[in-house]
């Protein structure tokens, strides 16, 4: 189960961040923040020439004792970071990918909303619902 999902803008500020156990929110915020470095590292490692073929799903960014952090970057350098509880019988990679895909689709829908200015925080209820579903379903 994803315990924390964050959408980070290109300039590395959060557009949307939400975590499940409220009391550990700060910890997850910090985790996401530190994961951004890993994301950049992975992205740069691919090389500029490969930008077009770069796969969006970055995979496991780094594991910790309690949880694992997965990353996903869009072509517009918007990053999705997902923190998953390790105690969960390991979620399959495909499931993580599908979750990111859903995230990406929802994010696209938010973008399509003309009332949304890129760079604003995401307040879309549909997006919230989707994230909620992801955070509770993948148990």
């Amino acid at each position, binding site marked *: 189960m994803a315990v924390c999902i964050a959408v980070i803008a290109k300039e590395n500020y959060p557009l949307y961040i939400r975590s499940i156990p409220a009391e550990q929110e700060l910890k997850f915020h910090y985790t996401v923040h530190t994961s951004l470095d890993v994301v950049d590292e992975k992205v740069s490692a691919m090389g500029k020439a490969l930008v077009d073929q770069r*796969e*969006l*799903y970055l995979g496991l960014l780094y594991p910790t004792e309690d949880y694992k952090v997965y990353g996903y970057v869009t072509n517009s350098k918007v990053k999705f970071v997902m923190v998953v509880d390790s105690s969960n019988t390991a979620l*399959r990679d*495909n*499931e993580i*990918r*599908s*979750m*990111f*895909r*859903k995230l*990406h*689709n929802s994010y*696209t*829908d938010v973008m*399509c*909303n*003309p*009332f*949304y200015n890129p760079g604003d925080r995401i*307040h*879309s*209820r*549909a997006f919230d619902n989707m994230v909620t579903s992801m955070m509770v379903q*993948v148990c």
Partner: protein
Amino acid sequence: MEGLTLSDAEQKYYSDLFSYCDIESTKKVASNGRVVELFRAAQLPNEVVLQIMELCGATRLGYFGRSQFYIALKLVAVAQSGLPLRVESINTVKDLPLPRFGASKNEQESRHTTSYSSDTENQGSYSGVIPPPPGRVQVKKGSVSHDAVQPRTSTDQQESTSPVVSPQQSPPTSPHTWRKHNRHPSGGNNERSLAGPGPFWSPFSEAQTGSSAGDAVWSGHSPPPPQENWVSFADTPPTSTLLAMHPASVQDQTTVRTVASATTANEIRRQSSSYDDPWKITDEQRQYYVNQFKTIQPDLNGFIPGSAAKEFFTKSKLPILELSHIWELSDFDKDGALTLDEFCAAFHLVVARKNGYDLPEKLPESLMPKLIDLEDSADVGDQSGEVGYSGSPAEAPPSKSPSMPSLNQTWPELNQSSEQWETFSERSSSSQTLTQFDSNIAPADPDTAIVHPVPIRMTPSKIHMQEMELKRTGSDHTNPTSPLLVKPSDLSEENKINSSVKFVSGNTVADGYSSSDSFTSDPEQIGNAVTRQRSHSGTSPDNTAPPPPPPRPHPSHSRSSSLDMNRTFPVTTGQQQAGVVAHPPAVPPRPQPSQVPGPHVHRPVDAEGLITHTSTSPQQIPEQPNFADFSQFEVFAASNVNEEPDDEAEKHPEVLQVEKSSDPSGSLRVAKTDGRIEEKTAASAPANVGKSTTPLAPPPKPIRRRLKSEDELRPEVDEHSQKTGVLAAVLSSQPSIPRSVGKDKKAIQASIRRNKETNTVLARLNSELQQQLKDVLEERISLEVQLEQLRPFSHL
């Protein structure tokens, strides 16, 4: 100018007049010509008319907006009562008789009045929804009307202190106020987003919140916020009344205003309570929405781009967050643009919100836009049915809307599916694309998704596109079978390619698609296709021992056009063993079609190029001896097919085909009726050419030897000349036996037709190949000559 306070009667009257003058039906501007006429009919001296026009601001604006018009009318009334014309006199003069105009106008006015009274009554019935918000048009003018409003507002405010003070707001100063207020709208519109609608919507007693509210009201009017206009209209028949109230809301200066506000407030409350289904759109509302839609997008079937819609709805002064939510609800297909239905839904939601209704979490049913055109709403239902059928095998994913899943699954456009697959692959690995389709339903079951390349989920835009496409294909029955059939076959091929396991599943998927196509294409054919495919899998094992090789009735059109053939000639359709099974061994020799024509052109042309064989099949019949040449066909078929030793049944027809078309290049394609065979045929097309040169390869070679024979044949690319002959033979050998056996004459004729088509295709191919052969031979000759010329040198 100060806000205009009009009594109800005045409002009605003025609205009528405005409509009368609104010859352009824009509801924005009363044409100057008409207005001037009207004023002249008022029997006022010209200078008075000019003064009136100047006072109301028309000269400044250059046209008569609704507010200007009303003010002008009021001034006319003032003038007609003999009072001095002053701006403040608009509101200060009470109990003013209605302005009188020439007799010619009266009838129209009366007509307008009657219609208007009915309108106002209707308005009463709406809860805040006003079909023709007169003021709205004027509001659309935006800054202009806003300017008009502002001065009025300012004057109203001043008026609040004392009517007497208002003279300060006389025209000379109004320009200043206008300018000052001009700056307001830009900044204030958004801020007052709530303030504006607030006074409108809340009981009018609250309307008099103050100048800011008044400004908000005005600013609300400036942009044509539909809701506001509606609100204002619903609440108070005359927009101007509302406006007047608001600017003057600061102070209940006139009892008229308060009374009017109370009345309107009561009206509003009454109207609100009368709503049974708050989300239902009445006809008038709908008409209004449609008109508004037309102002942005004249084509009712077109889209309103997101930016235009944003501007439009921003004028409603709702907070951006709520507008964003409304957009999310109403943009059904998530394409960033609004269709007419979506626009009406959004508009309705805005109106409701302005009226104080909370926005729903999900789009109400009554607002749900038809995914297909309104006329095709029935299709949606049908599709749902279809979806149910096709969806079952395809794991209908829970889509965003109830109708979405049906549409998702009814996509007969496998091509589009493949496109989507590619699109998704951009996002992630290709293997994931399949999962992606299933992500909505079974994310935890990626295997199934991968194996089952059913485009369950499609991006909204694609869905919409597909919907449109679906509609198109539904309406277009000209090529129901071929493209659709091709798709299922393609799908099955892809299935084979992708999963290589679930041929059956692929078939089912294809079946699903086929079945979904049924409503768009010939159901029979689809059923046939489905049957065909099913039969393929089912019959393949059966065809191990091909009875007298039922000459593949049809050249492998297999998937494409041969739907009919499939139906009528199960053997051929199956292209796989299915056809074989259906064919009884003994096939009366059918007069072979002019063997030249190749099989269905499209089939051969296709990459799969399998079907062509089917066309030759009928031609196989006449030549009984061809039966004996099964080996050749087998070889041929083998070479063409390159595999599938299992398809003995296929082989038989293939053999026949091989025999016939061993030479003809076209026969290659023709020979491979079966889907699998078709694939192979495509690959082996070049080989076939070679084979064609060696028509009589080892005759009865088991299918397994096909490959071998194919190899043998390949290097033997020589006499193309024999092609035609062979092709003819093949074609002739293709018996329509199976067909004739149990099929109707009609079916036979259809198959004959198909075969003829195939023949033509083959013939064409043949001729092309022969032409190529000639060219090659010529080149060879020239090269030899050159060599000869050079050789002497070498000797020297």
